[in-house]
């Protein structure tokens, strides 16, 4: 059974279609990446699948339940990590997890051991007794992640889980996501506008732009569609020998710099260097998902600076209310 199946899902806000005719099928246990720039419709799609928004038209089933007719059953089977942390800043970290566990009907005896385990996982044990309003943006995010995982959902939605995190925390979050997939066979829907994140985590990636899915496939397949990886060589190069290698598709030379189109450079680089002659400099340029997005949408995904620190700003606003 598919964990998620959508048919012609549409959400319009007045005249603008935030999600436009999306049909998807995501099998159980898959990490599915939704990749696109800000405003592409990723969050709207996730909001509909998690029953927080009703679709304008079309249908979807999550864990086998209809998102409009059986929303309660859908919610029982999912966990969500929101893009903007929704942890309660007037409660402590531990209280947030405790109340969440009760809302999700975890048995009383299991709650406290699970809370301690999750706090350990996101490294918040030391600060668990402090009010969330004293947390940094990154800490709020980690608490949010712990909360989304604590009830062991079958399907987990992660909306930009590492936005605004420092590199060490980001690596840690990637670690949890991989562990969830491997150890618990959790189906994970991940939105991101970081290419490397989709590349590192996702089994399949949908590229979404202006509410439509414009391309869908494994990271490898998408990269193949865009073109091949390149190796640049400098030195006294044996051009004929290179051209005869089976995995080389093109060789161009410009001012003594050879640009070589190559399949699977991770495996074939050694053979290329062995045959290449006397080599002074090597540079490998692999196709990235940035290239993929550029090719399919005609635009670049902006990793815009204004997004950095957004959680710090949200944290500041939330702390000053009341």
């Amino acid at each position, binding site marked *: 059974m598919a964990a998620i199946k959508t048919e012609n899902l549409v959400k319009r806000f007045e005249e603008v279609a935030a999600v436009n005719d999306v049909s998807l099928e995501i099998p159980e246990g898959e990490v599915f990446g939704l990749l696109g720039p800000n405003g592409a419709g990723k969050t709207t799609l996730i*909001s509909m699948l998690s029953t927080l928004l*009703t679709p304008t038209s079309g249908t979807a089933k999550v864990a086998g339940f209809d998102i409009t007719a059986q929303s*309660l059953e859908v919610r029982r089977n999912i966990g969500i990590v*929101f893009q903007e942390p*929704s942890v*309660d800043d007037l*409660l402590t970290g531990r209280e947030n997890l405790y109340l969440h566990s*009760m809302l999700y*009907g975890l048995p009383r005896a299991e709650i406290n051991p699970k809370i301690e385990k999750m706090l350990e996982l996101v490294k918040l044990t030391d600060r668990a007794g402090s009010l969330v309003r004293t947390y940094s943006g990154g800490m709020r995010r980690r608490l949010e992640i712990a909360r989304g995982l604590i009830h062991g959902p079958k399907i987990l939605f992660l909306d930009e889980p590492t936005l605004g995190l420092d590199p060490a925390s980001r690596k840690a979050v990637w670690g949890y996501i991989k562990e969830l997939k491997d150890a618990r066979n959790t189906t994970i829907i991940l939105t991101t506008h970081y290419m490397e994140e989709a590349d590192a985590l996702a089994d399949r990636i949908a590229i979404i732009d202006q509410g439509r899915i414009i391309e869908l496939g494994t990271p490898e397949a998408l990269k193949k569609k865009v073109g091949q990886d390149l190796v640049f060589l400098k030195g006294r190069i044996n051009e004929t020998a290179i051209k005869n290698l089976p995995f080389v598709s093109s060789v161009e030379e410009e001012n003594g710099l050879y640009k070589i189109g190559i399949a699977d450079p991770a495996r074939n680089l050694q053979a290329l260097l062995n045959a290449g002659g006397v080599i002074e400099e090597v540079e490998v340029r692999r196709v990235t998902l940035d290239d993929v997005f550029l090719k399919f949408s005609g635009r670049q995904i902006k990793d815009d600076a204004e997004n950095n620190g957004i959680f710090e700003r949200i944290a500041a606003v939330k702390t000053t209310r009341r």
Partner: protein
Amino acid sequence: MINFNAIYALLLREALIYFREKERIISILISPLLFLFVVGKGLAGSSPVPGYSYQQFIFPGIMVMVILFTSITYGLYIIWDKRLDFLKEVLAAPISRTTLFLGKALGGMLGALVETMLLLVIGAVFVLPLPFWKLLLSLAAAVPVSYMITNLGLTIGAKMKSMEGFGLVMSFLTWPLFFFSGALFDVATAAPYIRAVSLFDPVTYAVDLMRVIMFGYGVFPVWADLGAIAAFCLLTTAIGVSAFGKLQQEK
């Protein structure tokens, strides 16, 4: 349909927050205390109830005022929760909207009842000495009154999009509900247009009920007070559950 564990969790959240913000507990009592000690003492008008001063006469009304202001303000606060995304967590939880509404309503009642208790103590010491059973009965009567008004606040809060509407609700709803209720005068002898409006004000019946409990004096029979309050409880539950059912993420 109704998940009592979840209601307990929602109530626990409100209780934790409520007792953490002690300055709010005090600040919400300021206006009612001004009415009680400045207007009540300063006007020094005649009391419609023989044997009681004007200040003592308005005490039941001031008690209802505390419930009214605490409950409406609490209900409107969910606009903040909506705007700052705290409500998303509970909207995404596997609980029905009825459960969510009842949990929130109980949270509001808790706050209103704590404030009522404080005012009853202040009143019993400085204004109107009452036997203990009358204090208990007043507190019991405050339960359905705070429930219906919290429901009203939550319904408006669920419908409103921004906190800018807060002042409008206070000016166009809360204050009129208070003034027309006869909290500061006797509805029986008021001008006809005031009497006409007050009949449609649910707070009128709450004030009347409190006066019956404290003085044995009421304009309406007790069954009419209780009936009106019960009807308003049911009505506001229905519209509140319906408003919560329509709550969606706004962006």
